């Protein structure tokens, strides 16, 4: 059981180092509180967003925390490949430049998997291959409007 945990952990950690490094001008890794006995402790991150000093997760800014978490999610997804991915407003806390970075990463991942992302942010919408518009009809039912092709 410990073996299974550690091999999964190592794989996701290695994904995280790559993905987090690409999303931010910095680097980071996963950290086990109790490496000897993982189940006795928790899992946290040691990250250097934009090459800053390491700080506890709760001392980081909202956007920095969100980027770490998103990189963690992407690391798990890379470990368990699926034919399609759905992302609902994952760019909420990010500034425009970080949204672009996420859109860029999704774009390259989407060469091998189908990605459907819901977003209200311009850089995400602009990074996609196509846009599906969703609005409300006067009778309050959902209207899905034509698919716009991007770029």
């Amino acid at each position, binding site marked *: 059981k410990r073996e*299974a*945990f550690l091999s*999964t*952990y190592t794989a*996701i950690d290695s994904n995280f180092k790559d993905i987090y490094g690409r999303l931010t001008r910095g680097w980071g890794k996963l950290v*086990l*509180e109790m490496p000897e006995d993982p*189940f006795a*402790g*928790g*899992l*946290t991150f040691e990250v250097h967003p934009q090459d800053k000093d390491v700080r506890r*997760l709760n001392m980081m800014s909202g956007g920095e925390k*969100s980027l770490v978490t*998103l990189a963690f*999610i992407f690391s*798990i*997804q890379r*470990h*368990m*490949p*699926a*034919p*399609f*991915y*759905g*992302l*609902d407003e*994952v760019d*909420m*806390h990010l500034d425009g430049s970080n949204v672009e970075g996420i859109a860029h990463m*999704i*774009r390259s991942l*989407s*060469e091998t*998997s*189908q*990605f*459907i*992302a*819901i*977003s*209200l942010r311009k850089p995400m*919408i602009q*990074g*996609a*291959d*196509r*846009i*599906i*518009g*969703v*609005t*409300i*009809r006067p*009778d*309050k*039912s*959902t209207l899905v409007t034509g*698919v716009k092709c991007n770029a």
Partner: protein
Amino acid sequence: MHITLLEIDNFKSFGRKTKIPLETGFTVISGPNGSGKSNILDSILFALGITSARGLRAERLTDLINTGSNKNTAEVHVSFSDGTRITRRIKRTANGYYSYNYLNGRLCKQGDVLAFLANHGIKPQGYNIVMQGDVARIMEMSDFERRKIIDEIA
């Protein structure tokens, strides 16, 4: 493999039968608050049977039936690029509901659908669908809960 078509009928805010063709690559869905974007993702989760009613922001499955129309059923079809078409239908009854699952038009058990999906890497405890608020939830977790995420995957 990828999803080629979504057909949403009387599910949540989809009062009128709606067809959404989907392609490979990177598709973005956008529009005003409350228009039905998250409901599209909910319809996929509902059809594939990989979340409970609570995961679809409903207290019971019958909440998923559109309240604007007077019909008592809601139906979602998900078609894949390998030709498979998965359907799920709920029907409100006097004292509850019925839930029907179909593989390529033939009635089946929910387990059959889950088995098909598992063969293609789609599992209920997977992270291929990130719902609105999941990032904030994982961000605010204790270190212990976060490690448990790895436990479940291993």
